[in-house]
Each structure stands twice: as C-alpha cells, then as structure tokens.
C-alpha cells in the first residue's frame, strides 16, 4: 500500500471539491447550453446560472432559446427560473424535479446577437422522414401548387396583340397539305376517266346499235349477222357496265375518305385555339384558389410549427423509451447510449410540474402548468400536459392546452388554442401580394385544434377578425389597377372570417381554406378582368378564324366541286350505257323474233315443197 498515494488522493479530492464549488456553475451552464443547442439546433443561452450543492437548488435569471428558423429572434425567453433536484436519483444518473417555477416567459423576442450555432446542423431526426415530416412537406406542396399567377398580368391591360405575334397556328398548314393531297386524288380520277374514253365508247356503241335496223333486214342470213353484232355490242356494254360499277364503288370510298379528312379540320382549328388560350394565360379566377393563395402559407406555417414540435418530441421520446434501439454509427470514441426503461423504475429524466407565467406578444398575461415532462411516459403511466390561460383587462383571453401521449406504441398529440378579443395591431394577415395590407387595429378570435396520430392528422382552424382598420394610406395615384381593385374590396370588409381544415390519412392530404375575403377578392378581380378577358378571347378567336376560314372555305368548295364533277361524269356514262342497253335489247328481241319467224316460214315452205315433190313423184 502506498501511503503517500492515499495522502495525495485525499489532498486531490479536497482540491477538486474546492474547484467544484467555484466552477460548477460555469461548467453546468456550458453543459446545459451545449445539450440545449444540440436539441434545438440554435443557441441556448443561460444568464447567471447558479447551482447550489446544498439542497441541489438550480436557478437562472434568464434563458434564451434562439429560433433555428430566424436566429435573430428567440423561440422562447424566460425570466427568473428555479428548481430543486432530488439527490438520490442523481446517484443513478437520473434527473428528477418535483417542482419548477418559470416566470417572464415570452416568445418571439429580438436577440442582441445571432443565435446561429457554428456546429454542423443537428442530425436529421427519424421523424423528419417519418409521417410528421412527410406531412409537413405535403402541406408545403399544397401551397406551392396554388396557382402561381404572375400578378404582373393584372397590373396592365390584357395585351393580346403581343401574344398573337408569337403564335404559330398549325391548322393553315395542315389544310394546305390536305388540299394538296385531295387535288392529287382528284387528278388521279380525272386521268382515269380520261383514259377510259367514256365519250368514244358511248359514240361507238350508239353507232353500232343504230346500224342494227331489223326493219331493213330481209334475209335470214342478214338477221343472223345482225344478231351476232347485237350480241357483241351487248357483251361490250356489259363489260363497260361492270367497269362503271367498280369505278363508282371506288369513287364512293375515296370521296368518303376525303370527307373524313376534311372533318379533321374542325379538330385542328379547335386545338389551335386551345394552344392560343394557353399561350395567352388568361386567368381563371375562383374563390378557392384565392383563399389558398392569400392565407395558405400562414396557416401551413403555423400548423407546421406545431408539427415540428411534435416531430422533435416524438423523436426524443422514442429514443429514450425504445425497447430495441437500432445500431447507429456514432462519431469515433463517442459510442451509442442504450437506455433501459423499466416500468417499475424511475425514468431517466422527469420534471413533474412546471409553474409558468409570462405574456404573449399582445401583452396577454399567461399562466399555467406543464406536467410530467419525462423521458419515458410508460414508466410513470402519465402523458405530458400543457395548460396555459390568460387574459387582459380589456377582455382579451387565451387558452392553450397540449397533450403529448407516448404511452402506447402509436404516439398521439393534441393541441387546442382558443383566443378571444386579441388585439391585432400592426399585423400582416398574409404575405401574398394579393393582400398586402396591414391591420392597424382589429380584434381577433381564434378557435383551433390539431390532433396528430401515428399516421393521421386532423386540424381545424377558425379565425375571425372584427372591427377592422387597415392601413390604406398608400397614395392611390401610385397604385396599379389591381391594387386599386383589391383596396376597393378590402375597404368594404368589416370582418374577416377564415375557416381552414386539414385532413391527412397516410399519404393523402386534403387542405381546404374558405374565407369571406375569397369571394370578395374574386369578385373584384373578376369585375376588373372579366370584360377584358372576354374581349381577349373574342379577339383571339377572330384571329384564328381569320387565318383559317378562307382556306377552309376553299377546301370545302374544292371537295364539293370535284365530287359533283366526278360523280356526274361516272353517272353520265352509266346512264348513257343504260340507254343503249334498252334500245339494243329491243332490237335483239325483234331480230330473234324475226329469225324465229323466218325459220318457221322456211320450214313451212320446205314442207310444202316436199309435199309438192311427193305429188309429182
């Protein structure tokens, strides 16, 4: 045993204890600031932190928690706070606080220094990629999808002429191509009819039929010769008739195809007009789209603020109470802390009650309780609850409650905010250029609730602003016509009533926003623009018609003329043939009859001659 060593250790322990008494406050302050900054992602600063070993009493005069999204503002600022730690749990590395007082709480206060931390951004929590994170992104996407109007188009008259210069219509070219194709087809028929020499054929048949005169034929031989001629003419006529029939069928098919092609012209013109409208981007104004455009961002930002808090608390609650953690890849020599929550044992961290007091930016004095901020709710069987309320002398009142329940496998959070008669001074209700006016004075009423489950979200936000006084001091001469129209609508508004609803189930998100301003602004914009929009449409319609109608008419005329001509020619030929068929058939019949008679006559005469010869011989 080294006795000198023991002496050395005793002296060392005394020195360390003494230094501890002197430096504990600074060390503890640095550690708490470090831990807080890592969780929040921005600076956490304690002022005058004092830890007393006697009674384990911790207090500080001021705490600033910077907002990671706007590092020149505080997310939370407190005044004097104090708490007592229990001694025995500390020996097990557990921090248990029975009661904590926090006063002078404020939000959104300005900072004297930038709250950005130099360290790398806090690692992405699993909840940022989980349901809550995805929901936040989808809500941002809903607002981003709201019509991204280029408002410049409302600040000047709808200029159609400049659009017309840039247009390239397809239908005139298509009509020309179609016309060319049809002309070629008609030329083919023309050539076919030319080669067929219809007139010569008819003439030939006519002369041949005319040459057959049964009345002038005397002898049987002549009759038989005439019949042969008639039959050959008939064969020719038959052949010509079958050619005519085939030709008529082919022509009918071709003409039908031509009609079908010509019918496409309407579709081309329609498509061209549609293209023109899209190019012109004539606005489509309806109330829903305005509501999302004007108020959507503010609503979604508020909701996402709550969801961000829920995401972070879910992440840390899950980490500290996980039954089987995933293997992480920590930095070298840091390792991964594995927690062993045991239901019968005390949790690692537990603040049983915090008594809060503070005020809102609108000077509403708030007080309330936060109970059971704990590392593992299952160990204590209670959820974390926040209950705040406050009022002002003029009757304004606020009630805020929140529940964070991680006792079951499916996490659940609930937020409820009711505010009545909250003075709204120098408040901008929307960042949208469609609604640029600040409220100088008004009274606000809010009723909102948000329920977040494992894979679901329901939120309802009702906001009413009464006794409105807008800042309308902007000189009207400097305004464009859109601003004038909106101002005219806003001037007439005595209340703003907004109802928003968010319903998320899994990956489906529905965001609805209705306000009385939607109809008001839509009406103003429509009255401003509808006459112009209609005139613009008509002008564009006329332009398209002027480019296309002449060609269309010319095409129709060509088709009609050619159809009539070709049909007429072939029909004329068919009729010509038919006429001669009738005449020829009559002559044939007559010749055949005469041949019959001649044959009979000849036979009779032969019989008589035979009889005479018999008599002689």
């Amino acid at each position, binding site marked *: *045993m*080294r006795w000198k*060593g*023991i002496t*050395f*250790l005793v002296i060392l322990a005394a020195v360390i204890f003494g230094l501890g008494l002197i430096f504990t406050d600074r060390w503890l302050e640095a550690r708490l600031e470090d831990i807080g900054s890592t969780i929040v992602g921005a600076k956490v600063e304690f002022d005058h932190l004092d830890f007393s070993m006697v009674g384990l009493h911790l207090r500080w005069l001021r705490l600033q928690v910077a907002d990671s999204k706007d590092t020149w503002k505080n997310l939370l600022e407190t005044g004097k706070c104090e708490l007592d730690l229990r001694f*025995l749990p500390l*020996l*097990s*590395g*557990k921090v248990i606080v029975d009661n904590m007082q926090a006063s002078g709480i404020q939000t959104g206060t300005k900072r004297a220094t930038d709250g950005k931390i130099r360290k790398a951004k806090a690692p992405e929590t699993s909840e940022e990629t989980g349901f809550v994170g995805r929901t936040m992104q989808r809500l941002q996407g809903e607002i981003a999808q709201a019509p991204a109007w280029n408002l410049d188009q409302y600040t000047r008259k709808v200029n159609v002429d400049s659009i017309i210069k840039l247009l390239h219509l397809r239908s005139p070219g298509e009509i020309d191509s179609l016309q060319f194709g049809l002309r070629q087809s008609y030329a083919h028929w023309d050539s076919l009819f030319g080669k067929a020499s219809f007139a010569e054929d008819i003439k030939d048949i006519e002369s041949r039929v005319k040459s057959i005169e049964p009345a002038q034929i005397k002898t049987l031989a002549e009759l038989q010769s005439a019949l042969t001629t008639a039959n050959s003419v008939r064969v020719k006529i038959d052949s010509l008739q079958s050619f005519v029939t085939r030709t008529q069928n082919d022509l009918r098919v071709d003409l039908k195809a031509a009609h079908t092609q010509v019918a496409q012209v309407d579709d081309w013109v329609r498509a061209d007009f549609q293209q023109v409208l899209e190019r012109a981007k004539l606005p489509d104004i309806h109330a829903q789209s305005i509501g999302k455009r004007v108020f959507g961002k503010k609503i979604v930002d508020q909701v996402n603020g709550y969801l961000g808090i829920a995401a972070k608390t879910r992440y840390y609650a899950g980490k500290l109470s996980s039954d*089987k*953690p995933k*293997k992480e890849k*920590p930095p*070298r*020599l*840091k*390792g*991964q*802390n*594995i*927690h*062993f929550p*045991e239901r019968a*044992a*005390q949790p690692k961290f537990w603040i049983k009650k915090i008594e809060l007091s503070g005020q809102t930016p609108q000077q509403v004095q708030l007080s309330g309780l936060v109970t059971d901020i704990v590392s593992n709710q299952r160990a204590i069987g209670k959820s974390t609850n926040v209950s705040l309320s406050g009022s002002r002398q003029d009757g304004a009142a606020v009630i805020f409650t929140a529940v964070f329940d991680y006792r079951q496998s499916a996490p659940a959070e609930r937020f409820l905010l009711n505010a009545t008669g909250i003075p709204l001074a120098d408040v901008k209700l929307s960042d949208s250029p469609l609604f640029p006016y600040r409220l100088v004075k008004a009274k606000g009423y809010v009723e909102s609730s948000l329920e977040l489950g494992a894979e679901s979200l329901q939120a309802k936000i009702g906001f009413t602003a009464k006794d409105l006084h807008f800042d309308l001091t902007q000189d009207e001469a400097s305004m464009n016509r859109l601003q004038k129209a909106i101002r005219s609508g806003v001037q007439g508004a005595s209340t703003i009533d907004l109802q928003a609803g968010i319903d998320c189930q899994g990956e489906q998100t529905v965001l609805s926003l209705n306000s009385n301003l939607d109809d008001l602004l839509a009406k103003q914009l429509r009255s401003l623009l509808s006459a112009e929009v209609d005139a613009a449409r008509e002008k564009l319609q006329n332009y398209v018609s002027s480019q296309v109608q002449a060609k269309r008419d010319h095409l129709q005329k060509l088709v009609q003329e050619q159809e009539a001509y070709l049909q007429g020619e072939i029909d004329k030929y068919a009729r010509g043939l038919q006429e001669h068929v009738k005449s020829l058939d009559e002559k044939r019949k007559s010749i055949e009859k005469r041949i019959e008679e001649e044959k009979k006559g000849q036979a009779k005469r032969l019989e008589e001659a035979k009889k005479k010869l018999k008599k002689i011989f």
Partner: protein
Amino acid sequence: MLIIKFLSKLIRILRSAASPGQIAGGFVLGMILGLTPLWKLHNLVTFILLVILNVNISTALFGFALFSGITYLLDPFFHSLGFYLLVDVKSLWSVWAALYNMPVIALTHFNNTVVLGSLVSSLALVTPVFLASKKGVILYREKLDSKLQKTRFMQLLKSSRIYSLYERIRDWRD
C-alpha cells in the same frame, strides 16, 4: 525522435529496480486507462488503485500511451461488442436494466457501447497481459538485457547526442 524516446523509456523501466509484478501491475492499469474512455467513473477506481497500490507508475503511463494509440483503431470493434452485449444478448437485459436504475452504477455510463465494449475487452485482457508482461520483464532481465547492451543499436543510442542529452536530463531529475 519519438521512437527513440519510447524505446529508451521502455528499456529504462525494464532495467529499473521495480519488481516484475509492480511493472506488470502498472502496465495493466495503464492499459485499462488507455483502452477505455478516460473521463468515466470506472477510471476513477483505476486511478485510485494506481495511486494507492504499489505499482510502477511509469509503466502505467507507458501502458496508457501505448493503448491510447490503439484505441482509436479499435473503436468500431468496441462499439460493436458493446452493442452486442447491451442489445443483442437478451438474457442480459434484466441485468442491464437493474444496473441502469442502480445508484452510482448508472453514473458509470456502462450503457454506452464504447464504454462497455472497451471495459469488457480490457478486463478480459488483464490476466493474460499481466502474466505476459511479468514474464517479459523477467525474460528481459535474465536473458536479453546483457545482450542488448552490447548491440550496435544500443551503442549508437548511447553515443548519440540525443541519448546523452537524455541521460543528462535524467540525472538532473534523479
């Protein structure tokens, strides 16, 4: 320069008046300090043992320096071993849960994967390292020292300016 210093220190320790057990004991305690994260409660115990037990402190420092260098390379192994013991071995969960809620033990951060992995590894190495280093000291003293003194390396070492400077400083300290 560092290597020469290192070797000189080693040889000096081996040739010192301390017993092989004292040297080996110091080396083992230095190994624990070097392999495990330094500022943890178990190292307070190690440090106390180092101070109150009659072990060679120079050897402990030597061992601490030697194993600190190796620890960085072995960190992934310690993390995996710690994770395996803390999470994958289900039969130990109740033990860990009980220790996690036990006063003082919970302050040792045994639930950290690197702390547990390195501590278990160093405790497993205590006996073999102690026996091996004790045997090594005896072997050196009995068989190697005289031979080593005659080597060209030792002659160079002794004749080098660095070594003479070192001896002067050593004599001054003594």
